[in-house]
């Protein structure tokens, strides 16, 4: 009997059934896709890191190294499984041409190396270790394949030397565009040939036991006075960098999924309440003849159960069909995921969870049938209680759907404009300048820093600049032990990074800590910290906390460091006077620095953002447009449904108006007028929630990825311009379509007492 009722019900109201199914399918699709992508990304990254045997601790170093001292240090430590030093030859970008594309404008540190012997392997696109590189051949980082459309057999020019591309490689620690270096693989003989064309640096790498504490090891390494002229990185940070670029796209899809689920819940509740109201007499009759309330509830629930099952299956099929397009970039960078089955399972779980949530909300709504007594339902009159038996939320739900739709359109646009903005790098530990000059891997950094300072001070086109030198210091922990720390010294107020708490250091005894550093030391703004410099211990007060993913993430900023010490590297942030062409200035200065014997890398920060986050931005842009489409579609469907319902309810009144002489235009105008406040309220609430709540929401997720104190850069044109316009047009079209039935209502219907 239930099956018969269900079938007849679906046959009787196909529009409502299809709409409900559509909402259930779209929600399941989005969640399944999110789960699949997230598990796929983590799986791919882990699979690659396993295949490549990524080191647990890595110290970059420019300058000589004492292999014997390193070996002694390693022997004394049980937690070390293996240790190696790799050479990396840093090349001039302008000397490199891939196919027909010069790397002159590239912001990455490009260089060559030979295959590692023990671990940290460079792997091919099947994730197999590249065993042999013949002379004259080169393996190119996979990110450049897509970027420049390269293929095997094309040539790579490095200075005078020419190489043939033998294949593409994945580099487990520098694969992400957010990692600032890229390693090309050449043969031993070619490496030696190229040596004079670049500057060599070392990668000192350690594989540790599973139970070893990477941070403690890093401190012990610095304390032992071993080479530290360069950033130090741990395995968790490498994993985070790898996951971050595609993770942001998944984050946007997740946020969209959550909002879509909310909208689906609202709409399903809305259609159900409408149906319950229409079926009030039938429910009363069923109660009167003695049908148990559970049975009545199940009669309705069965339909939703069937639709949700169908929705989940369709959502999953759609998710699996469309995952290819979204995972293409992920697969290219990180290769296949070994936990493919987990991805499928997670997608199933995601779809099941979505349907579970929707069905739970349906069951809650159906509880209303229980509160309604047989008499109330039959007579349509509440007895004893003041409440209406089945209140219809109607306009409120439409306003809420418009709000959520606006939220759905605004949030990804805001994330997009925030990440595209040059200021976004300030959440990653990079100053708010126009141009950045790096002095690294060179002799006499202190001297060259002074030289560059003088040059910049004389330059007329420069508006202002700041020189920041990074030194290695040790912080004294409360238990008396030490922790290694890279402290950047200089005026941090000129081009500040974004501070999650507090502000940049100004006074002599002030220090700002990176989020990771503050976490490790257990310090907050206002706490004191004892720093061991080359001269004497000095007490500092923590004045600010910022997020930083550069140089290993554990950094500090101070205005003054006693004694100076030897800087590991220097960074200059420069802003030019108005009207000065940036590109030309950069070209002139690259030449000028080279003539002065200063090996500094000059980068346009806007270009750096495009290079580093370009792929991510493109993916988020895709997700943002998908969100706009989805939101517009949902708003349209809901408005059409709602308007049709209104017309059905008002049939008698519309007929009466027609009988009294109202034109079709008059009647339609009345409905548009009724929708106006709902639309305005929805748009306003959407703008407010999209900007305020959206910022909080995105902030929570970005914090887990390492970016703290996140502030939206609101795209005014989108938020107050075309997005509300899309909402207005969508609602207008929806109302227009929903009002089609008005034309078919006859003026004499009201006289016949027809409902």
């Amino acid at each position, binding site marked *: 009997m239930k099956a*018969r009722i269900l079938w007849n019900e679906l046959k*009787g109201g196909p529009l409502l059934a299809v709409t409900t199914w559509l909402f259930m399918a779209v929600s399941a699709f989005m969640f399944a896709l999110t789960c699949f992508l997230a598990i796929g990304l983590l799986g791919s990254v882990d699979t690659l890191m396993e295949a490549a045997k990524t080191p647990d601790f890595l110290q970059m170093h420019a300058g000589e190294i004492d292999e014997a001292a390193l070996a002694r240090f390693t022997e004394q430590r049980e937690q070390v499984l293996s240790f190696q030093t790799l050479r990396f030859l840093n090349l001039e970008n302008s000397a490199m041409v891939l196919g027909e594309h010069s790397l002159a404008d590239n912001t990455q540190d490009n260089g060559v190396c030979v295959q590692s012997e023990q671990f940290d392997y460079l792997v091919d696109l099947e994730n197999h270790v590249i065993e042999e590189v013949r002379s004259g051949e080169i393996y190119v980082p996979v990110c450049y394949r897509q970027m420049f459309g390269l293929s095997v057999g094309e040539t790579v020019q490095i200075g005078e030397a020419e190489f043939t591309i033998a294949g593409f490689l994945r580099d487990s620690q520098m694969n992400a565009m957010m990692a600032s270096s890229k390693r090309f693989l050449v043969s031993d003989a070619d490496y030696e040939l190229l040596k004079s064309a670049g500057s060599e640096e070392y990668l000192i790498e350690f594989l540790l036991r599973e139970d070893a504490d990477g941070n403690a090891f890093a401190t012990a390494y610095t304390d032992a006075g071993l080479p530290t002229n360069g950033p130090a990185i741990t395995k968790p940070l490498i994993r985070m960098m790898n996951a971050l670029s595609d993770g942001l796209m998944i984050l946007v899809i997740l946020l969209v999924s959550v909002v879509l689920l909310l909208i689906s819940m609202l709409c399903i509740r809305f259609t159900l309440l409408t149906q319950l109201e229409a079926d009030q*007499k*039938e429910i009363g009759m*069923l109660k009167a*003849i003695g*049908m148990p309330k559970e049975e009545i509830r199940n009669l309705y629930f069965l339909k939703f159960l069937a639709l949700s099952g169908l929705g989940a299956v369709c959502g999953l099929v759609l998710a699996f069909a469309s995952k290819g397009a979204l995972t293409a970039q992920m697969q290219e960078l990180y290769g296949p995921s070994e936990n493919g089955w987990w991805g499928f399972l997670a997608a199933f779980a995601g779809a099941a969870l979505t349907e579970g949530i929707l069905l739970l909300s349906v069951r809650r709504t159906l509880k209303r049938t229980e509160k309604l007594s047989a008499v109330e339902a039959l007579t349509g009159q509440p007895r004893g209680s003041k409440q209406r038996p089945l209140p219809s939320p109607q306009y409120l739900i439409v306003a809420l759907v418009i709000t959520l739709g606006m939220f759905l359109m605004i949030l990804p646009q805001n994330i997009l404009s925030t990440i595209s903005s040059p200021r976004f790098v300030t959440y990653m530990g990079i100053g708010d300048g126009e141009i950045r000059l790096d002095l690294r891997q060179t002799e006499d950094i202190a001297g060259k820093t002074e030289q560059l300072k003088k040059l910049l001070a004389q330059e007329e086109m420069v508006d202002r600049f700041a020189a920041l030198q990074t030194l290695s210091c040790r912080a004294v922990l409360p238990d008396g032990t030490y922790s290694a720390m890279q402290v950047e010294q200089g005026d941090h107020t000129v081009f500040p990074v974004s501070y999650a708490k507090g502000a940049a250091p100004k006074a002599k005894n002030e220090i700002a800590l990176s989020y990771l550093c503050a976490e490790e030391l257990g310090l907050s703004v206002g706490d004191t910290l004892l720093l061991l410099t080359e001269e004497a211990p000095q007490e500092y007060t923590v004045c600010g906390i910022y997020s930083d993913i550069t140089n290993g993430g554990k950094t500090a900023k101070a205005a003054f460091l006693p004694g100076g010490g030897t800087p590991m590297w220097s960074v200059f942030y420069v802003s030019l006077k108005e009207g000065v062409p940036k590109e030309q200035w950069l070209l002139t200065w690259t030449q000028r620095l080279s003539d002065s014997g200063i090996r500094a890398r000059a980068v346009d920060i806007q270009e750096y953002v495009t290079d580093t986050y370009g792929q991510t931005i493109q993916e988020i842009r895709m997700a943002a447009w998908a969100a706009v489409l989805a939101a517009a579609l949902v708003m349209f469907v809901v408005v059409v449904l709602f308007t049709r319902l209104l017309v059905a309810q008002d049939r008698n009144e519309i007929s009466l108006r027609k009988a009294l002489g109202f034109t079709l235009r008059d009647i339609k105008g009345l409905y548009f007028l009724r929708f106006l406040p709902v639309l305005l309220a929805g748009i306003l609430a959407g703008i407010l929630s999209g900007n305020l709540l959206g910022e909080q929401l995105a902030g929570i997720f970005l914090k887990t990825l390492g970016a703290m104190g996140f502030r939206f850069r609101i795209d005014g044109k989108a938020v107050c311009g075309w997005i509300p316009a899309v909402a207005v047009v969508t609602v207008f079209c929806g109302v227009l379509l929903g009002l089609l039935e008005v034309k078919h209502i006859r003026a004499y219907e009201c006289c016949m007492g027809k409902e």
Partner: protein
Amino acid sequence: MEELLTVKKLCKDGILKDISFDVKIREMVAIMGPSGSGKSTLLYQVSGMDRADSGEVWIDGTEICALSEDERAKLRLSRMGFVFQQMNMLKNLNLLDNILLPASRLNRGKVPRKELESRARRLMGKMGIEALAQRRITEVSGGQLQRACICRSMINQPKILFADEPTGALNQSTAQEVMAEFTRLNQEGTTILMVTHDSKVAAKCGRILYLLDGRIQGEFSPTGAMGEKEREAAVSRWLAGMGW
């Protein structure tokens, strides 16, 4: 004769005031009274659709006021039948399925559908609507629909049948046909309590209770020996005396 329904000192929301009466097995009783006198409210209380503020309602030896909503629902399903003025039926089912609805719930898993279906068809046959079994409820006349409602009310062989203005929405000739079915059912042994506005309908009952301002003001039993016209005239006279 033994009592099937006993109502003692029933009160509800000030609409029903201290009402007591009983209905014996095989009796057909009509409740009459002007609009707002509390007729329908009384029917809702004695059938357990609503709970009275105070008083007792005994049906077939069970006091229903003390029962939970679910227990009262079970009792309605197994021992009571209902016929409404508005002929409420599920619009998504055909006549046969609508009639089978209470039976399929009560006998779930115990009696095969075929057997229930043949029971329903027998009832429909008696009412002269067997040929309409597969019709949707919008495809039959009001009289046919009300007969189907009576079939539904009888499908679980109830001890008592409650009817609320069963001919209120029908024209005169159809109303007479439907009342003939009620009389036949009563003669076959079904106890019936109905609310009606129509003195001709009431005249077919063995006893009439007159309700005014929530109290039973009078009771009248047209004697069985009288012919139909005489019974109707006697009822009309009595009603006139009550201020109808």
